[in-house]
């Protein structure tokens, strides 16, 4: 049954309809978790013993940074499937994720910079973590530029998938940069296997924000994918029939 579901999702028409039903659910749950996460993060969570109130920017910074890497991995995996199996829908997922991924990367860099000035004493340093995250932003921008430079959508998707796969080597570098080299950026506070070095009262809103941002990405990627489907399939009968129906 699961195989059949994926098979059906590979059809643009089916995907268009299912995505249309899913978007409101993603949006509502995004807004609920966002309000909860921001309220608890900005008002309820206690101040930090060293940084006072200014640590609260991490409720945007950390989830954004996680998303910037998560979305890139999604793009690389979709790119791999597109290249090997030539499935239209995964091609659409690759390009629909690029702008939202770039936005999260920018947000992570900008909020980090705002925090860095009062805490470290500088807006920017060329340490391994900050530099590799900046390279990630350039990868996203390169993918967007490459996609819009090629007229034929299928050719463009193939080129973009290759670029996404080439750049995926940067993801472990970003993640491990704070362990492999001396960096100004602190090591990870939340890891999969160790007890997090963050108090529970601060961790819960942070994880809520992380879920919230994931739901936002879900909503945006589905909306963008629907728009892309209509554009690509504009000559097909089902799209033209749908447009006629709407016009009535």
């Amino acid at each position, binding site marked *: 049954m699961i195989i059949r579901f994926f098979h059906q999702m590979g059809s643009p028409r089916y995907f268009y309809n299912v995505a249309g039903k899913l978007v409101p659910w993603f949006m509502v749950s995004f807004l609920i978790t966002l309000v909860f996460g921001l309220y608890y993060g900005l008002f309820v969570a206690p101040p*930090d013993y060293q*940084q006072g109130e200014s640590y609260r920017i991490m409720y945007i910074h950390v989830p954004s940074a996680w998303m910037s890497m998560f979305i890139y991995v999604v793009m690389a995996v979709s790119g791999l499937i597109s290249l090997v199996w030539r499935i239209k829908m995964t091609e659409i997922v690759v390009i629909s994720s690029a702008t939202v991924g770039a936005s999260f990367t920018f947000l992570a860099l900008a909020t980090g910079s705002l925090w860095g000035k009062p805490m470290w*004493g500088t807006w920017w340093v060329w340490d391994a973590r900050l530099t590799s995250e900046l390279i990630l932003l350039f990868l996203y921008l390169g993918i967007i530029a490459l996609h819009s430079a090629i007229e034929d959508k299928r050719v463009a998707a193939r080129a973009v998938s290759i670029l996404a796969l080439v750049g995926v080597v940067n993801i472990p570098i970003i993640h491990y940069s704070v362990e492999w080299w001396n960096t*100004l950026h*602190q090591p990870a506070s939340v890891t999969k296997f160790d007890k997090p070095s963050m108090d529970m009262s601060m961790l819960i809103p942070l994880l809520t924000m992380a879920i919230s941002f994931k739901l936002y990405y879900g909503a945006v990627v589905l909306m963008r994918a629907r728009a892309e489907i209509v554009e690509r399939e504009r000559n097909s009968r089902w799209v033209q029939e749908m447009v006629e129906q709407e016009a009535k």
Partner: protein
Amino acid sequence: MNPIRKKRLTLIGLMVAGIGVATWLALNAFDENLMFFFSPSEVVEGKAPEAHPFRIGGLVQSDSVKRKPDGLTTAFSVTDNAEAVTVEYTGILPDLFREGQGIVAMGQLNQNGIFIASEVLAKHDENYMPPEVAESLKTAHDEAVANPQPQASVQ
């Protein structure tokens, strides 16, 4: 899986593996340059460059911070709990600067082995906790130090 897809998958696998190995080799070659700072032990061993500025990173040693009479210059020791280097800096220190705090300073050694810093950055650690928790941790630690339990390991 049909042979064409298998071939494509193999090619992509080889491409990603190739790029991975190339990047790993490049990063290995640049390893020294990717280090953002040198530790006091490395500076004492003479691994840090003498002719041009570099960064030193470590903890500000307790009871080492001294203000010079001009009111702007601060002298302190940076340590990695093995070696210590004296640092002098004229200017405004970041908010997080305090004894026991991790810092990174940019500058150069003078003839007396004193590190003349042109910039001091605070290095934040990965620990986040409310002030009360920090307070109770400190109290517990102080008590443990004051009355050591037999066989208890005290950090």
